[in-house]
């Protein structure tokens, strides 16, 4: 474990925290990606540019813009193959369905929910963390077979 394993996560996490703070103290909103996406999905695209949704577009726009810029950097791609198509499809469905039912994901419940000391978020985080860890363990066992 070197400084990169600690420093970059700490700095990156601080930026994520700062992002949540800005969204909260100026716009009164929780920085939860699943919530932002699902709110837009439930409405007709026409309404996305109306005042109640503008902050969602802005947030996603910022996230996307930064990612586009980073994608243009010639940095060596340390990100490996993401998995088979069927794995990605099943995982995507589970993540979408799960976060919609739970009303939050790692940013909504994990960061904002815990920062608010929410009991719901504590339960959610414990459950999805444990389940995810068990899933990875099962993946190892399954791949062994």
């Amino acid at each position, binding site marked *: 474990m070197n400084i990169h394993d600690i420093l970059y996560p700490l700095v990156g996490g601080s930026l994520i925290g700062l992002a949540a703070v800005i969204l909260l103290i100026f716009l009164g909103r929780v920085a939860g*990606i699943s919530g932002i996406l699902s709110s837009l999905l439930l409405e007709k695209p026409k309404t996305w540019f109306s005042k109640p949704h503008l902050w969602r577009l802005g947030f996603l726009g910022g996230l996307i813009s930064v990612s586009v810029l980073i994608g243009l950097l010639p940095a060596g791609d340390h990100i490996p193959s993401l998995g088979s198509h069927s794995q990605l499809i099943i*995982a995507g469905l589970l993540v979408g369905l799960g976060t919609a*039912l739970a009303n939050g994901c790692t940013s909504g419940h994990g960061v904002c929910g815990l920062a608010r000391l929410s009991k719901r978020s504590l339960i959610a985080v414990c*459950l999805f963390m444990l*389940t995810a860890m068990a899933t990875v363990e099962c993946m190892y066992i399954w791949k062994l077979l």
Partner: protein
Amino acid sequence: MWQFILSMISGGLFGLGLWLSGMTNPKKVIGFLDINGQFGPWQPALIFVMLSAILIAMPAFYWIKKRHKTLLNESIHLPTNHIIDRPLIIGSILFGLGWGLVGICPGPAIALFAAGRFEVIWFLIPMLVGLFIGKKINS
């Protein structure tokens, strides 16, 4: 206008944080979830990401509890449901299953696609479908 600009800044910082911390890299995420170190040495990065994010966000959430309006005079929209209900439990487990499968969650999925890793569309579209279905079930 300031609302839009600030939300963009927030999203941009969020994205920067995701990339810098390595959370857009499923290998790092799975490396943390792989608590037994089966696929390789355990990677604690995720813990440091969440700890720093939570510690920084905590004072703001404490501060806003006593307020009725934001610094821009906007109304405050915090979740009001405090009950630990079945959708929360089932949803969290389903999310954990999907997350553990490939190590990708909603934010990184968008970030990866925008950065040119277009194969994540195989995750992104089903995720949007799942979100839609889930919200319909919940309403």
